């Protein structure tokens, strides 16, 4: 596929990795923000192409992972409501709430539909005027324009039976929260490229300035990531902390003005609780008052929700870049994608799920547990 295959060339990747090795003189810790980037890094073994001085830590950039358990339980309560058609992206189906996941609720009779696009959920509402269609609107800034468009379009088409359960999260406040923590280890960021296609680069300039960290907006293919790492390492070695754009084929400095306008019309910034991390002030989107008729949180009263998280799970520390999946005693044992204990295992883009999918739990076992047998 054009604009995909050419960015997966092995010898080009080697050239970039060699250049990184020639550039680096001391240890650096770099965080890739987005879960899609984590997935590419582990899938292609990009972390293993790098010199030992460059450590990649995996950020909380997977919206499925960081959706709070309270919100998931709320979604499940609404999905079980009589007459509701509950629509969700496929990634959310297997995420366990306190009692079940969406697939289990479906098997118990709830009408749960996987949609490719929020706009498909709007069409479902038009096709089923006597049913209440609820869309679970999760995501970072990348997903905010399509979700906002769905709400805007439903209002324009007077589809009063369409509503959204909003659990949007925002990248810049999360980066500020990580950098402000006393135990922070992150010295540079690979910025989430698709978030930047929408919002542009301007929000990152004050963060780079305040904390003196390089932030390089980076794409999702192997060559994108290696070039993003190279540009971050070059800045670190030169003592610079600036915003750069590796992903210029998709990211304009101003983002997408039409998308930013629609987001501002439909959403307002709110405080948001992140699974594994906790409450981050001004780190989410909620529907504006003008769209209250489409706000599932107001339309469906849900009883008090009490949640319980695993005490073994270290996903909070992984999401902050303090630990790796291997550091967790439950990783690959009682915690797996089939039986996830916490945020980083619930979606394929979580760091633990990515490590598991590409067999890294087996490697750690081999190294730690298998007896050494002499080769005869």
């Amino acid at each position, binding site marked *: *596929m054009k604009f995909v295959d050419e960015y997966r060339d092995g010898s080009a990747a080697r050239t970039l990795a060699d250049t990184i090795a020639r550039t680096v003189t001391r240890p650096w810790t770099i965080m890739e923000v987005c879960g899609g980037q984590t997935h590419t890094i582990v899938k292609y073994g990009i972390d293993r192409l790098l010199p030992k001085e460059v450590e990649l830590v995996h950020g909380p950039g997977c919206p499925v992972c960081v959706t709070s358990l309270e919100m998931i339980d709320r979604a499940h309560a609404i999905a079980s409501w009589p007459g509701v058609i509950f629509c969700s992206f496929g990634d959310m189906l297997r995420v366990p709430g306190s009692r079940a996941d969406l697939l289990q609720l479906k098997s118990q009779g709830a009408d749960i539909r996987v949609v490719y696009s929020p706009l498909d959920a709007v069409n479902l509402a038009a096709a089923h005027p006597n049913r209440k269609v609820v869309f679970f609107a999760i995501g970072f800034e990348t997903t905010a324009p399509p979700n906002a468009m769905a709400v805007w379009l439903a209002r324009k088409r007077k589809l009063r039976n369409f509503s959204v359960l909003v659990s949007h999260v925002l990248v810049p406040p999360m980066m500020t929260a990580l950098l402000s923590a006393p135990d922070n280890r992150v010295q540079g960021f690979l910025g989430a490229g698709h978030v930047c296609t929408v919002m542009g680069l301007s929000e990152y300039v004050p963060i780079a300035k305040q904390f003196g960290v390089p932030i390089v907006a980076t794409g999702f293919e192997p060559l994108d990531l290696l070039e993003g790492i190279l540009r971050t390492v070059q800045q670190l070695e030169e003592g610079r902390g600036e915003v750069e754009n590796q992903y210029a084929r998709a990211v304009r400095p101003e983002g997408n003005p039409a998308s930013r306008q629609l987001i501002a019309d439909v959403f307002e910034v709110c405080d948001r609780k992140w699974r594994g991390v906790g409450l981050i002030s001004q780190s989410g989107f909620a529907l504006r008052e003008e769209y209250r008729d489409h706000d599932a949180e107001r339309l469906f009263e849900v009883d008090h929700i009490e949640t319980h998280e695993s005490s073994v799970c270290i996903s909070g520390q992984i999401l902050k870049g303090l630990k790796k999946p291997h550091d967790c005693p439950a990783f690959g044992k009682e915690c797996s994608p089939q039986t996830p204990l916490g945020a980083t295992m619930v979606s394929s883009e979580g760091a633990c799920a990515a490590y598991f999918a590409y067999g890294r739990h087996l490697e750690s076992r081999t190294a730690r547990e298998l007896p050494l047998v002499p080769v005869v």
Partner: protein
Amino acid sequence: MCLGIPGKVTETYREHDVLMGKVDFGGVFKRVCLEHVPEVQIGEYVLVHVGFALTRIDEAEATRVFALLKELDQLGELEEAPP
């Protein structure tokens, strides 16, 4: 989750007063909302996330990394060349 796939616009039309189009992802066709890339022409590439085009792909910028790689290769050859 923030998956963005590049695809080629093969058709545009309006539906409920919103710009829509048919986009070719290496042989798989999907209907996509093009409302936020209003200037897009048939044959151009857009980056699509959950049925919504986020941006047009800039073809000139897309080749920049290969120019850098060529430079790096030449640099590598110079460094490896015997004195």
